[in-house]
């Protein structure tokens, strides 16, 4: 948790180079309730509540999960800043938008942004050691593997044992964690596709904007175009980027 706090502080300092004002305040990190931690819940973020409660990054201090060890900094960038906390806090402040866009959560957009944020942190050199950067790469590999396993199970008919074996062969994970992951994919078909597909689409849109704008491309303005209509489906992000490019 200490390492995550330090990583989030570095990201907060870097936010101004990624997005224009207003920059949200950093979120806090707390240990999650004991019974959730014992059940193996993954570290996660809960956004600021309408009653004024702040956004919080909940950490599992009882059962080691993804995010423990070398992957910790990547997880902090994903859950807090520049990931979920930045995106959701900024959206909630957009008072002219309908609540559906300010408080809604479109998985492919929200999880895609958070995974994109891990990459953004790497591009800004925010990982503190090469090992932490390696941890981030392994987490990216893990999310890519989800695309194969989720579709493998539900469209290609993979059995549970085969899915666990393939996942562990591709991303060396503890057996219990791999089992829990497969359980999640089985319980919520397709949800796990949103992360890597969303990131892939955001990276594609950014590359396209860079190509079209050349030296006029500004990352801060690109990110504002992506973030400042709240939670939207990915094709709409494409429309927003097109509109921004046309106005440049």
């Amino acid at each position, binding site marked *: 948790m200490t390492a995550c706090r330090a990583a989030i502080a570095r990201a907060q300092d870097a936010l101004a180079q990624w997005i224009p004002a207003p920059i949200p305040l950093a979120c806090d990190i707390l240990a999650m309730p004991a*019974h*959730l931690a014992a*059940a193996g819940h993954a570290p996660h973020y809960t956004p600021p*509540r*309408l*009653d*004024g*409660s702040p956004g919080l990054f909940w950490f599992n201090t009882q059962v080691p999960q993804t995010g423990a060890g070398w992957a910790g900094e990547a997880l902090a960038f994903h859950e807090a800043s520049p990931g979920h906390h930045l995106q959701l806090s900024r959206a909630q402040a957009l008072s002219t*938008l*309908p*609540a*559906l*866009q300010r*408080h*809604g959560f479109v998985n*492919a957009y929200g999880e895609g942004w958070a995974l994109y944020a891990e990459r953004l942190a790497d591009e800004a050199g925010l990982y503190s050691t*090469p090992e932490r950067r*390696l941890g981030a*790469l*392994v987490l*990216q*590999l893990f999310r*890519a*593997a989800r*695309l*194969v396993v989720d*579709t493998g199970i*539900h*469209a*290609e*008919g993979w*059995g549970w044992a085969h*899915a666990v074996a393939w996942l562990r062969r*591709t991303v*060396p994970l503890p057996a219990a964690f791999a089992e*829990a992951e*497969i*359980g*999640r994919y*089985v319980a*919520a*078909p*397709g*949800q796990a*596709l*949103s992360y*890597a*597909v*969303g990131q*892939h689409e955001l990276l594609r849109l950014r590359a396209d904007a860079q190509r079209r704008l050349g030296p006029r491309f500004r990352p801060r303005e690109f990110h504002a175009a992506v973030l400042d*209509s*709240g*939670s*939207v*489906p*990915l*094709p*709409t992000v494409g*429309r927003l980027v097109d*509109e921004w490019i046309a106005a440049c």
Partner: protein
Amino acid sequence: MTIAAVADELDTAWREHRPFLASEDGLCAYDDRVPDLTVEAEDAYRAALGRLARRARDLDETALTFADAVTRDVVLDAAQRELTLLESGGLEHTVAPVMTEGPTALLTVASRTVLRRPQDASAYLARCRAMPAYLRAHVARLQEGARHDRRPVAALVQAATRQVDEALASGGNKLASVPPPPGWVGAEAWQQQVARASDAAARALGDWRAAVAALAVRADDACGLCHLPGGEGDYAALARAHTTLDVTPAEVHALGRAQVEALHDAVVELGGVLGHAGLEATM
């Protein structure tokens, strides 16, 4: 009607369908409710989604500003995603210790509840009292699914019933562990009422466990949606809904394979530079 009004109506319908999530967002108007899992409630929600999507589609596109057009995209996407989730019938064949309706949601409520005012305490008591009916409705939906050969997966049933067993063995559902508002004069009587509601919920958890243990299950080797009647089409629709893109499962699978290959090479290369031979050593 403006697109903003349609969006607000959809947002309200969504929150009424998912009051636990509304509470997590800090909307205290929903704190006394539990999800209505009955077929009738689902049908009403489905009808509302269809009606709102039609209203959004029927708006004159030429009269919309760019911001309005964005909102219309969001409304149509959200309505379609919710309809897809309903059509896939997950409620009738999913038992799991995570991310599902039923005991998992119940066991999570206490840890996410903070009571500041007497009215918060009253709302929480009403929610606790509604838990047994919530669990009974969940069982009824699972039994309905089983009648149509849509059965839950064995490994997840085992994990979910184990979660319930552990909760019951360690003092129940924690509903009575939520402290009353600080300094409230009605605290003592309220705590007794919550304790009784908690006991009733614990009995309902036991009933849920017995009913689920009696369900026929799907073998772990057939854990995918494609093994259920109509499951192939359901999954293709869910893949589109969760990615918001017009992609097929086969295309997503191929994208994943390509990403895995590229990232594997990057991991092994950086791991090698750091003196770790092979993928395993990087972990």
